[in-house]
């Protein structure tokens, strides 16, 4: 499985630089293909960081519009993936910081047409079988959600990039414009908070 993923990545990269160059020359179809290479991952990253589908969509739109506007400045000094993730994480960090100032939004909102669960456009890994296990799983997820909300925006971003996106700490440092060591320290703090808050669940 790991091998397949690696091979697929290599194949993508070969086409990617050509797509970028064509898009830099104004080829809109090439730009659309470039977006398709990354749009699912960008939406997933934003969704996991922000835990709100509409915010994730806002970041998705803004990130790709910025890429479209500034692609001519991309000089292949880093990978396109790193450049794109830097834009996405910066947008998410801004939003997370704003949220720290105002109140964290509720998962359920009242609308004129009734109650709307904001997480309806999200698929979660479901616990199967045993109802007791499902209940525990639901409680644990709520707890994890609460712990994630308590992390600082930087801790949350580093944790997300490492745990769910599988990026190496060195790459996370590049994405966040910091050192590998700083990213590592951030990850330590995040995982320590997780341990403390969730230790009694496992």
């Amino acid at each position, binding site marked *: 499985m790991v091998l397949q993923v690696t091979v697929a990545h290599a194949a993508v990269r070969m086409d990617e*630089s050509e797509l970028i*160059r064509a898009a*830099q*020359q*104004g080829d*809109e179809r090439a*730009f*659309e293909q470039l*977006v398709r290479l990354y*749009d*699912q991952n960008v*939406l*997933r990253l934003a*969704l*996991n960081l922000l*835990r709100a*589908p509409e915010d*994730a*969509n806002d970041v*998705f*739109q803004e990130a*790709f*519009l910025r890429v*479209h*506007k500034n692609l*001519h400045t991309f*000089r292949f000094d880093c990978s396109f993936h790193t450049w794109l993730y830097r834009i996405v994480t910066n947008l998410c960090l801004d939003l997370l910081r704003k949220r720290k100032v105002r109140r964290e939004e509720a998962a359920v909102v009242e609308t004129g047409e009734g109650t709307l669960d904001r*997480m309806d*456009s*999200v*698929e*979660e*890994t479901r*616990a199967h079988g045993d109802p007791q296990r499902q209940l525990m*799983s639901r409680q*644990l*997820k709520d707890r*994890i*959600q609460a712990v*994630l909300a308590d992390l600082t925006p930087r801790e949350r971003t580093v944790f997300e990039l*490492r*745990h*769910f996106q599988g990026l*190496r*700490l060195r790459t996370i440092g590049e994405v966040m414009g910091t050192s590998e060591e700083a990213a*590592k320290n951030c*990850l*330590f703090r995040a*995982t320590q908070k*997780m*341990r403390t808050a*969730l*230790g009694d*669940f*496992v």
Partner: protein
Amino acid sequence: MNCEEARKSFPLLLYGELSFDEEERLEAHIDECAACREALARDKALWRELDSAELHPTQDLLEDARAELKSRLAAARPMRESFWDKIRDGFSIHFHFAPGLGQVAGAAVMLALGFFAARVTPGSLGGAFHAAGLAEPVTSRVRYIEPDGPGKVQIVLDETRQQVLSGSVEDPSIQRLLLAAAKDPSDAGVRVESVDLLKNEPQSAEVRQALLYALQHDPNAGVRLKALDGLKAFAEDPETRRTLTHVLLNDDNPGVRTQVIDLLIQQHDSLRQRNDAMVSVLQELMEKESNNYIRMRCQKALTEMNASVESY
């Protein structure tokens, strides 16, 4: 390693971020310490639970996001600043077309080549330069339309006029146009021609900077080779050498790398001295280079400098 250090390392172990030696030391400690084994088992269980908290966007959310992006990109496209728009912004003259347009004067038609022509008229250049008069528009494009009272409409057009300019390559105004054209992302052919002309004037610092930029950043290998040609006489200049070294290690075109290594080695031969920085570059190149000719040149140069062909 004590228990505190071991437990601090667990996240890095679980994420595969420990070095071989660090992992060995940690495993040696875990083998000896039952409490840490238990703590690691707890962390592993916690990690599995954290995996279950990952969110995946539904297909609907993804499709909606894609559709919205498509329409927003389409809306942004006509307003996107073109290369020539940026160049135009660097000049002080503004063409305000058709005074009758009143409110929309700010968006008045501005010309690309015609605009340059207006700035570099013969009078402003003092002689050596010749510009023909403004021609009729070659292409017109509707920039935007808006209602203008009952039954009326305002239409703002972008028009492009062509104008033939002629003059010496040494003329500063001609050079300025060539420098701008050397970075025109929309036409590699124009860049090749511009760099080909500019490379004969590398004594100008501005031209040399443009050549260095083209060599490092132009996506077209033909343009990079022309730029390299122009920089040959300056291979001893420290900034040029730095750029050449960077290109040697990073350019994806073997033709460009071949010319660069020939130039660097030839220049090195003329200096006839061992250069540690050069040795280190060539050793790094040996580690990553796949082209046989370049490897052979590299190996020969290292041997002549009494340096090993690999870095250890």
